[in-house]
């Protein structure tokens, strides 16, 4: 079998400083995207555990698998002890154990507010099959957004196509693209299919891989800059999603915008699930206050 250059690293984490047993409210958020799925568990609104996996061909199973993985190494926490779960993302209605589904736009803004702080006004989410520019207030409430989910340009899938073309692992692409002495002009085609033929031409003309990758990374950055310009860029600025891990795209994006993105403290792919878990907590509190 051919090597799978597009394969990115899955991960899970448990907060060593927290115990769910000491907490009052245990909630979860599950983000089933078209390429990756995340489950986040929160204890009293603090990040307790998460898992980040590839989405399989079946959304309900992907949701169950990623949640089970998040629950591993959590000192005996089981799914029925989680008081509330919100599903989000492209497969949000296919999370069998979720009580509610909330759009990924709302969850991303809420999650970014938690992960990067309340000063965040603009969130650029660069996911596997879409990208969204979101404008939000100090509470993480969406005030405006623009989304591209029709075209692979500027998405993780586009980067995967280039990983395969260049035989470079997707995890190493960012670093490699920065190993150029001089920045080449960006690939001129927007469409990933055409950009791929253009890149094949550049390779045939003798361009080294890193130069081709630099040209594609800046084209990709340019693509999302146009989304951000249309929505109106306001600082502070945060980038979430898988592409946020690609330094080559992030640095070029920052350069073109003339704005620095906030340094991520968490896995950039969990923003949607974090937001969903926070909405879960708010919903539990609402129900409690009703009962009183």
């Amino acid at each position, binding site marked *: 079998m051919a090597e799978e250059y597009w394969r990115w690293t899955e991960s899970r984490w448990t907060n060593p400083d927290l115990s769910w047993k000491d907490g009052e409210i245990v909630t979860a958020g599950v983000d089933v995207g*078209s390429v990756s799925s995340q489950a986040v568990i929160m204890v009293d609104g603090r990040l307790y555990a998460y898992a980040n996996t590839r989405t399989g*061909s079946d959304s309900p199973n992907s949701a169950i698998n990623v949640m089970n993985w998040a629950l591993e190494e959590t000192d005996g926490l089981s799914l029925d002890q989680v008081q509330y779960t919100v599903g989000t993302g492209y497969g949000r209605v296919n999370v069998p154990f979720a009580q509610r589904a909330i759009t990924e736009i709302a969850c991303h803004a809420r999650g970014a507010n938690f992960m990067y702080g309340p000063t965040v006004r603009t969130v650029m989410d660069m996911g596997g*099959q879409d990208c969204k520019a979101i404008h939000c207030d100090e509470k993480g409430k969406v005030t405006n957004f623009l989304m591209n989910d*029709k*075209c*692979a340009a500027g998405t993780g*899938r*586009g980067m995967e*196509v280039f990983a395969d073309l260049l035989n470079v692992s997707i995890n190493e692409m960012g670093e490699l693209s920065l190993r150029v002495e001089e920045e080449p002009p960006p690939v001129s*085609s*927007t*469409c*990933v*299919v*055409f950009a791929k*033929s253009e890149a094949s*031409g550049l390779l*045939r003309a003798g361009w080294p891989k890193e130069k081709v990758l630099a040209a594609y990374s800046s084209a990709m950055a340019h693509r999302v800059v146009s989304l951000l310009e249309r929505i109106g860029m306001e600082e502070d600025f945060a980038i979430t999603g898988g592409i946020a891990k690609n330094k080559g795209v992030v640095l070029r994006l920052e350069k073109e915008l003339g704005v620095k993105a906030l340094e991520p403290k968490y896995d950039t792919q969990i923003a949607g699930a974090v937001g969903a878990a926070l909405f879960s907590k708010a919903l539990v509190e609402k129900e409690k206050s009703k009962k009183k």
Partner: protein
Amino acid sequence: MLTAGIDIGAKTIEIVILDDGKIAFQNLTVAGYDVRESLKKAWEDIEAQSGIKLDGIKKIVATGAGRKDTIYASDTITEVSAAAKGALALNRDIRTVVDVGAEEGRAIKVDSAGKVMDFAINEKCAAGAGAFTEAMARALEVPLEELGPLSLQSTQAVPMNAQCAVFAESELVTLVHNKTPKPDMARAIHDAIADRIVSMVRRVGLEEKVMLIGGVARNIGFVTSLKRDLETEVIVPEDCEYVGAYGAALAAAGK
């Protein structure tokens, strides 16, 4: 008097030579990495096969996305005017010309005098061009020339939600997982590209009669989906990929 038209596309180069306005010879050459080299090869073939010498041709006009790369033509015209000119010369009743090539698609509206009234072009997105069917055929592991006939065996319309060629490939994988019959997937592919082309036609306004030209017109699956979607008859000329070059050759002849 001999005149010639050269249509330099993304994948192929077509050359049509006219003798007093009548087609004397035509040649199709695959456009290699170096367009100039491919052009030289095409002329060598033409000389060898027809005996027509390059310096015996009075005027040469180039068209196509790569028209600026030509080494033989003294003039260039746009793909839109070449397509309109060629199509109208083949059939005076044509009012809408649909041209679908490897990496471009266009819909052109012409009046009875052959004047271009309006047009829409897609050269940015593979989903509305031959590159789409090519990528999908590869994903389905079906030779491109078999994709069209295969789709005619379809018994049901399966919707394809993705518009982007890259996303459509992932969607195709899901359809394969769900054991969708191959002919139905082939039809879904042609319905999807036809949908993109039809939205372009609607933008300029559909007026009969309609002629479909360009290499993708060879694909019977696409032609069938296009007719169904447009709900009208679509004329496909025998030499559908040469129409642009024919139009350029006519321009060279002053027509």
